């Protein structure tokens, strides 16, 4: 096919569950492309010699390579190319913000629309999950032992890459299920748990040992891992799991949740299943969520699915400054979520019995830029108004959980508690590396994976060459 013909093909759409129906169930919203649509979309790729898209991928997937194999009909080869760079494609294909990464750099984006790289990655990952019989087998053991703290995206990726090199890898996870934020934070309708289970199982087949119910900082310290347990190297990937509250009056009221608690009850503890799960969550007719990122979107869309009407999201800046993915915002609004922007909650009101009954908000306008480079929101005097609600969820970001760092004084952290690392991902303790949100602050799954992969290379060098 000539490039001119390829340029004429329009971008294929991702089939979605109809909005009204999906606003009341937890099934996946995006349904996945058909094989035919995937092939057509694959033909849109110009197979650039010096593909710009790869530089936008934190794990360096050979994009043109897997697409080419897919278009030729060799799906096993496409899967091999994919898994060579990315051990969790079913996850990244669903949650990566491709529009600001690989797809943003696609040359097609200049004159038309980029190749739907994310949808194709998902297509190959889903095909592999159902059909791939090849099992990744590890090379002969090196005799070196690595330990990973946290089974979130950074930890799992690091584990997979080290196992592929023949190292003995143990992952310690604080919760009772592996996956970290993938399993407690991201809802079923964006990332089904089954996908995580299958991809984690593949890592276990590669020899990775995952032990849940172990909290590093309490059950063991980092020193225990190096001195007593005899590991040669450590990767700390325990995430940014510290909820941030606004600090406004009324946060003690029943019905006020941090997004972490709200989502953990509903996702990890399956409270969305109602009485079939033993973990309760307050289901409310009127929910207000404060925040502008993907977590805020997940919270308000989840509330909608639990029956909230209205389900309102308030955010102190404007739409163009929201960090959330455009797709999530679009899906949320289609599902009936109301976005009230340039609004900031200042006080939560309660009933006599201590339940949330409403939240007082202030309207904002944009002033001069602040530290983040975005225009600072400034309250408009006298603009206070009240939203009636009985559940209020705060999704304004997460900080570094200090449980591990406070028992490891030799670990240098910045003033927010994030672990400081060099360009190889190594911390102030030799042989101890770190990556993901505990280093970056709350960021994305794929950036965490990139850190995990980079650290694995550095840890491999450290264990085999001594640095």
């Amino acid at each position, binding site marked *: 096919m000539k490039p001119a013909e390829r340029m004429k093909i329009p971008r294929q759409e991702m089939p979605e569950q109809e909005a009204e129906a999906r606003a009341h169930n937890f099934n996946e919203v995006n349904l996945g492309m058909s094989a035919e649509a995937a092939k057509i979309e694959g033909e849109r790729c110009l197979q650039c010699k010096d593909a710009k898209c790869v530089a936008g991928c934190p794990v360096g997937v050979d994009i043109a390579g897997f697409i080419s194999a897919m278009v030729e009909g060799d799906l096993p080869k496409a899967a091999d190319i994919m898994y060579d760079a990315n051990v969790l494609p079913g996850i990244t294909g669903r949650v990566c913000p491709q529009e600001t990464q690989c797809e943003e750099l696609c040359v097609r984006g200049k004159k038309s629309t980029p190749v739907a790289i994310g949808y194709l990655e998902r297509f190959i990952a889903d095909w592999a999950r159902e059909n791939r019989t090849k099992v990744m087998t590890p090379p002969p053991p090196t005799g070196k032992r690595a330990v990973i703290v946290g089974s979130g995206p950074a930890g799992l990726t690091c584990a997979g890459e080290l196992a592929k090199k023949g190292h003995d890898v143990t992952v310690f996870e604080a919760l009772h299920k592996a996956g970290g934020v993938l399993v407690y934070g991201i809802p079923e309708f964006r990332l089904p748990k089954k996908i995580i289970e299958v991809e984690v199982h593949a890592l276990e087949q590669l020899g990775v040992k995952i032990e849940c119910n172990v909290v590093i900082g309490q059950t063991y310290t980092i020193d225990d891992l190096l001195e007593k347990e005899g590991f040669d190297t450590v990767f700390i990937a325990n995430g940014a799991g*510290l909820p941030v509250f606004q600090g406004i009056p009324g946060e003690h009221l029943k019905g006020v949740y941090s997004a972490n608690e709200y989502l953990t009850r509903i996702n990890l*503890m399956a409270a969305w299943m109602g009485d079939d799960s033993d973990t309760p969550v307050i289901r409310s007719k009127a929910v207000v969520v404060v925040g502008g990122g993907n977590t805020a979107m997940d919270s308000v869309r989840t509330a909608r699915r639990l029956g909230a009407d209205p389900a309102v999201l308030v955010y102190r800046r404007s739409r163009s400054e929201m960090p959330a993915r455009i797709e999530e915002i679009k899906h949320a609004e289609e599902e009936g979520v109301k976005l009230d922007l340039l609004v900031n909650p200042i006080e939560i009101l309660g009933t006599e019995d201590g339940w949330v009954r409403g939240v007082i908000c202030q309207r904002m306008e944009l002033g001069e830029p602040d530290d983040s480079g975005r225009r600072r929101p400034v309250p408009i005097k006298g603009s206070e108004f009240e939203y009636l609600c009985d559940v209020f969820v705060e999704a304004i970001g997460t900080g570094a959980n200090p449980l591990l760092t406070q028992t490891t004084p030799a670990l240098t952290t910045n003033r927010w508690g994030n672990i400081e690392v060099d360009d190889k991902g190594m911390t102030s303790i030799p042989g101890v590396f770190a990556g993901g949100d505990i280093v970056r602050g709350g960021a994305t799954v794929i950036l965490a994976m990139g850190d995990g992969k980079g650290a694995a290379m550095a840890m491999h060098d450290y264990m085999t060459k001594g640095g």
Partner: protein
Amino acid sequence: MFSIREAKWLAPQVRWFIVEAPRAAARHKPGHFVIVRVREGGERIPLTVADSDAKAGTITLVVQVIGATTERLCSLQTGDAILDVVGPLGKPTEIEKFGHVVLVGGGVGTAVIYPQAGALKDAGNKVSAIMGGRSKPLVIMEEELRAACDAVYPCTDDGSYGYHGFVTGKLQELIDDASDPVNAVLTAGPVPMMKNVAKVTEAKRILTIASLNPIMVDGTGMCGGCRVTVGGQQKFACVDGPEFNAHDVDFAELTDRLTAYREQEKRAWDRLGEDPEHKCKLAAAEKELAANR
């Protein structure tokens, strides 16, 4: 899976377990707790570790039936297993040489003060323990406390055993005894009891540490569900506590926040009552308790 080495009833609705949990046992110190999940689909609940044996790799849990999850847990026998046990969690008790320490335990709170007793004694304190229960069968661990403390004062609301009255009555007596001043009080049990203990000790400004029991989910400081107000500041009981200076704790707020899921708890309890598999286990448990008496 965490095996149950031993399970027996200590009192009606109060069960004693020795559980195989080598990692938690190895690092356990008085004041620590664990989070437990009984089965798939089950909720995560915090339980104080009453004792541990690092060599044997076991921890001791004392559980009172107060809802569906504790009911399910207490229907387990020796040889059964708990799905998930994680710990040790929380900050351990700050053991110092205070002088004369009075431990006040109400109901299963007695299982919280027991491990503190031994550690305080080892640190050179004189240790007195006051344990309360509604009636004689509900005063637990007296033998264990007698072995660990210098003096033990069981109390019953109905006067069927020991001091007739609330633990706070006995505590006031000890405080009023000028010949043996009280230097510190550690307390654990129902919130109203801890609140009243704090009131009693406030007049003489006696250092009082309470072990708080808010609702928890993860137990590692990532959700904020266990937040309590101490000295006007927000603290997470699972990582900043569970022990706090009782005179600074907003007990009214803690009491209120504990009621957040009353409706769901009642529904879960009713549903369990109708579960045929559970009815079987319940019958077996009742037989065992009757035999023990």
